[in-house]
């Protein structure tokens, strides 16, 4: 059924390496290979996202956006990266040097760990744990530690205030993210990401799961936008009040780490929503339309995956540039008085639907 299966490719690479060296070295080489591939991917997606964000923002504000460096300003973000690499790394007086340097790494490692578990196509997944979804939720929860440490070790009131806000925000919204994903775990009966994607071969959970799945999808989008500290929930950075929040005192490549991690977390949220609710790399299928389904099968899974992910990223960007920033009490009210109760009731409804077998 599947035209594009990457497991044969990875298998042949594995066999090729096994013929050349001892099993232990094969493991080490594969780890290095996967690491390098993910690093490249991380940098490329980060650069692309910054460019897209600037273009989308410009489009909404009726401007042109970057258009000088390269065609349509495509190389602008590369130029920005080179500039950031050459910038001086400033150290704040009386700051805790060790924690100050460690914090950006915690943030970036947390997002890096999570990216490794995403299924990009059939057989193209670095880490297919049987608790994959839980794993992603748990490693992304490390981000907040990096933010808290960055805020304190900067020895600046703006940073500390931003970090405290961010801490309260991320801890609250983590609950909603986890619970909205729980609805799909109940539907598919598994936490393994490849199994969840396979269970959507005959239709995406957003359609198969009726209204409860749709409610969970909306809650996931809102809560994950808040968890990644993006506008309209960007009180941790709130330029107009806190200069730049928790990363005020960072410069050069360490600032770039925070910046990149924020964009990668957005990519991760969109990719996770695409995988769990929109069928991941599965093509769009309609029951009864055989010819249509055959045509859809010819589109490669990577195109489907990135198409869905970037469509969701566009929605998340629209959130940022169209909604005004929330106040901290409004933010916590939204989570604790609306999203969480709706989520809890939604889980009960989903369990009832699954018990009765009402979903497709």
């Amino acid at each position, binding site marked *: 059924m599947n035209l594009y299966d990457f497991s044969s490719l990875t298998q042949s690479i594995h066999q090729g390496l096994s013929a050349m060296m001892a099993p*232990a070295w094969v*493991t*080490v080489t594969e780890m290095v290979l996967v690491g390098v591939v993910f690093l490249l991917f991380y940098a490329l997606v980060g650069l692309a996202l910054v460019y897209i964000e600037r273009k989308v923002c410009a489009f909404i504000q009726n401007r042109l956006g970057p258009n000088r460096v390269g065609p349509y300003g495509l190389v602008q973000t590369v130029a920005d990266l080179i500039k950031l690499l050459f910038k001086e790394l400033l150290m704040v007086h009386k700051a*805790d040097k*060790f*924690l100050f340097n*460690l914090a950006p790494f915690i943030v970036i490692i947390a997002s890096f760990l999570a990216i490794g578990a995403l299924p990009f196509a059939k057989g193209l997944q670095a880490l297919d*744990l*049987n*608790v994959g979804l*839980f*794993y992603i*939720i*748990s*490693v992304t*929860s*490390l981000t*907040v*530690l990096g933010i*808290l*440490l960055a*805020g*304190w*070790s900067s020895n600046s009131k703006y940073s*500390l205030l931003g*970090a*405290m806000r961010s*801490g309260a925000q991320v*801890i609250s919204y*983590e609950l909603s993210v986890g619970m909205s994903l729980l609805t799909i*775990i109940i539907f598919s*009966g*598994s*936490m*393994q990401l490849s199994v969840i994607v396979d269970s959507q071969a005959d239709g995406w959970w957003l359609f198969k799961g009726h209204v409860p799945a749709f409610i969970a999808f909306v809650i996931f989008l809102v809560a994950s936008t808040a968890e990644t500290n993006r506008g309209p929930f960007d009180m941790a950075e709130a330029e107009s009040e806190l200069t730049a929040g928790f990363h005020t005192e960072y410069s050069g490549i360490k600032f770039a780490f925070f910046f990149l991690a924020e964009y990668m977390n957005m990519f991760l949220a969109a990719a996770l929503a695409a995988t769990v609710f929109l069928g991941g790399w599965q093509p769009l299928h309609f029951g009864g339309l055989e010819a249509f389904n055959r045509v859809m099968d010819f589109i490669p899974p990577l195109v489907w995956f990135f198409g869905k992910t970037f469509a969701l990223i566009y929605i998340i960007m629209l959130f940022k540039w169209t909604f005004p920033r929330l106040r901290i009490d409004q933010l916590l009210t939204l989570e604790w008085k609306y999203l969480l109760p709706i989520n809890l009731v939604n889980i009960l409804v989903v369990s009832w639907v699954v018990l009765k077998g009402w979903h497709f």
Partner: protein
Amino acid sequence: MSLHEILFIVFSTVVLLFSLMTVLSRRILRSATYLLLVLVATAGIYLWLQYEFMAAVQVALYAGGIVVIIVFSILLTHHIHHRSKPFPPVRVITGLGVAGLGAALTIWAILQHDFHYHEAEPLEVNAKVIGQHLVNTGDGGYALPFEVISVLLLAVLVGAIVVAKKDKANEQTSENK
């Protein structure tokens, strides 16, 4: 030495080293950071044992939950940047003695235990197995602990609300002042 052994040595060295640094560091926020590294390395040992569920629980609960709460509460206290004073020698000696005794007891227990080597296939712990064990009242079921913990958590939540809720009468008088 196989890759497996090297990984074990790396993880356990990280755990031991940073456990010591957690206790010995004079700055409280650094202690919390070292504790984070200890807990993450412990999750690494669970992954090494192919117990992915436990590793994810370890990271989510301890590293992402408890350490965050610890750091958060440290940030709310005064004088975080102060270095704690060195302990008097009596305390150092008693501390070392108790630690040595505990280590000796643990090592003795491990050496006494007769370990069996199993060739059995690892049990796959997926969502279904976890769910069935969690609400099972029979053998290997966790229904009772699950319920007891939920009652405890409810009590804690109610307590937290009571503590956090301002007394209305007091609030009005303070506003009048």
